[in-house]
């Protein structure tokens, strides 16, 4: 039996949160866009630059060897964070977008032919949509989509058997929708795809820092994520790929660090991960990403999920009191965010008013234009939660929204 312990007050770990905005204590509810960074992550970054900074690999001097150890240590740490079989299955990238572009360009370029199908879902972020459109245009492959069942935001899994035809070569989908808050049944989708011989790509940008993510339990072939949405710094993320797939993939960028031999006419490649990391890699930010893994595991990712999802559920319920509100996503279990809209007050007006109360929201299409169009929306406001948010902040949000609605609707001030 597990004992439910009180969630710790971690706000003090995050220097950015120690400020007022427009005269109010900052309430940061834009975590799906980027999270704040704990002092431990910032310190790891500073420590690296102040003590170990040198270019990695091939270095024969002390600092270069230390920097290489730090960088490869971060790779091993990330591998452990997602339960990859080996550090060589982790390729550092600028973030989720670059990781998906890598798969699309390298795996897609080598394996997709005219007439093949790339299967996506209607809830994909533009970063898991546009790279596939690019490779489809180049190879003659076509795109198909698993439908979303309206505002509730669930995938129509009944359609999957019909959609998993022999021409489908790859299925790429989001683990946790940044607009709907839906947590997709990733293990089930990956298992059904694998049974059909289809390679899977999981976009874990929104799930990685908010819930346990175990690539072997999920059974995905590739997984992409960003460090800055999981308490890490910007500019670093990773692609996980199963070793056998990575070893068969061609490079996607050429340069130093990725070759085993270069001649005037041709070159040979190193194995993964170096094959996919041309040029000087972003080792300093990778070290900070390792520190972010430590920080989140210190809190425990199952506990973080209970906290974030609990807040989102509470927000979903409390926002329901506001007249005319339309809330997106599942009523039951959801990731740590809620999108909502009003017929008479635009999302950007909502966000501007909330900002005056020191509350950071996001408004717009959330890089989900096709989904917005399908739902008949031009945009929504979104509140997204993280480890430092509290139930009291949801009360502040609801009170602020109430004042905004009164202002626009001409009710009592």
């Amino acid at each position: 039996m597990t004992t439910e312990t009180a969630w710790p007050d971690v706000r003090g770990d995050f220097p950015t949160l120690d400020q007022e905005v427009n005269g109010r204590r900052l309430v940061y509810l834009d975590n799906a866009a980027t999270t704040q960074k704990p002092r431990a992550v910032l310190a790891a970054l500073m420590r690296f630059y102040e003590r170990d900074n040198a270019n990695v690999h091939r270095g024969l001097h002390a600092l270069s060897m230390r920097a290489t150890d730090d960088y490869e240590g971060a790779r091993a740490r990330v591998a452990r964070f997602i339960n990859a079989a080996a550090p060589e299955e982790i390729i550092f990238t600028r973030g989720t977008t670059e990781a998906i572009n890598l798969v699309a360009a390298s795996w897609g370029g080598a394996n997709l032919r005219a007439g093949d199908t790339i299967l996506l879902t209607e809830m994909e972020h533009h970063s898991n949509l546009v790279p596939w459109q690019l490779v489809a245009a180049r190879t003659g492959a076509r795109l198909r989509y698993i439908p979303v069942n309206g505002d509730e935001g669930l995938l129509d899994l009944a359609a999957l058997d019909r959609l998993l035809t022999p021409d489908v070569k790859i299925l790429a989908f989001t683990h946790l929708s940044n607009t709907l808050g839906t947590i997709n049944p990733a293990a089930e989708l990956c298992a059904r795809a694998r049974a059909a011989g289809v390679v899977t790509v999981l976009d874990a940008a929104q799930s990685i820092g908010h819930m346990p993510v175990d690539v072997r339990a999920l059974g995905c072939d590739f997984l992409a994520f960003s460090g800055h949405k999981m308490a890490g710094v910007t500019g670093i993320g990773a692609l996980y790929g199963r070793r056998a797939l990575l070893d068969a993939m061609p490079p996607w960028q050429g340069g130093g660090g990725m070759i085993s031999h270069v001649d005037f006419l041709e070159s040979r490649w190193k194995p993964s991960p170096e094959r996919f990391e041309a040029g000087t890699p972003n080792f300093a930010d990778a070290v900070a990403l390792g520190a972010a893994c430590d920080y989140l595991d210190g809190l425990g990712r199952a506990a973080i999920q209970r906290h974030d999802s609990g807040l989102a559920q509470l927000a979903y319920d409390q926002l329901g009191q506001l007249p005319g509100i339309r809330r997106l996503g599942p009523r039951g279990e959801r990731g740590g965010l809620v999108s909502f809209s009003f017929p008479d007050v635009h999302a950007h007006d909502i966000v501007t008013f909330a900002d005056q109360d020191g509350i950071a929201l996001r408004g717009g299409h959330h890089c989900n234009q096709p989904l917005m169009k399908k739902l008949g929306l031009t945009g929504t406001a979104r509140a997204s939660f993280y480890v430092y948010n509290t139930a009291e902040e949801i009360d502040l949000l609801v009170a602020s929204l109430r004042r905004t609605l009164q202002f626009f609707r001409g009710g009592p001030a």
Partner: protein
Amino acid sequence: MSSDLTDLYQQVILDHNRRPRNRGRLPTANRVAHGDNPTCGDQCSVYLRLEGDRIADLSFDGSGCAISQASASLMTTLLKGKTAAEAAEIYRQFHEIVTTGHEPEEISDLAAFAGVHAFPARIKCATLGWHAMLNALTDRPETAVTEDSPP
């Protein structure tokens, strides 16, 4: 409510947002142009019936925040009957008001938009319909964009 915010959302703006004037497609239009703010998803179409050099009638349609919708609505009330040169001059005044906050010497509803200058991110909202209007006047078919594309 902060004073900046009440400056931004003046009564004139709220009124035009609640009851937009000249909204919808203009059946007699002989010019049309579209404005688009990709980050916001705001859209605005402006329909003109030009008779010679004069705007005989105009309307707008679209969706967006209160600032963008009210601005387009007010614009349609101010430009009816104006020549292309007069419309361009009114836009110049409007642009100065939203970027500097300086209110015009003549009394004008345009002054309601002076509060926008304190919110630089909203200037593109205020000018969206106007850019579409200018494109319609000069018969440029491309979509007017008052911001850079999103990352």
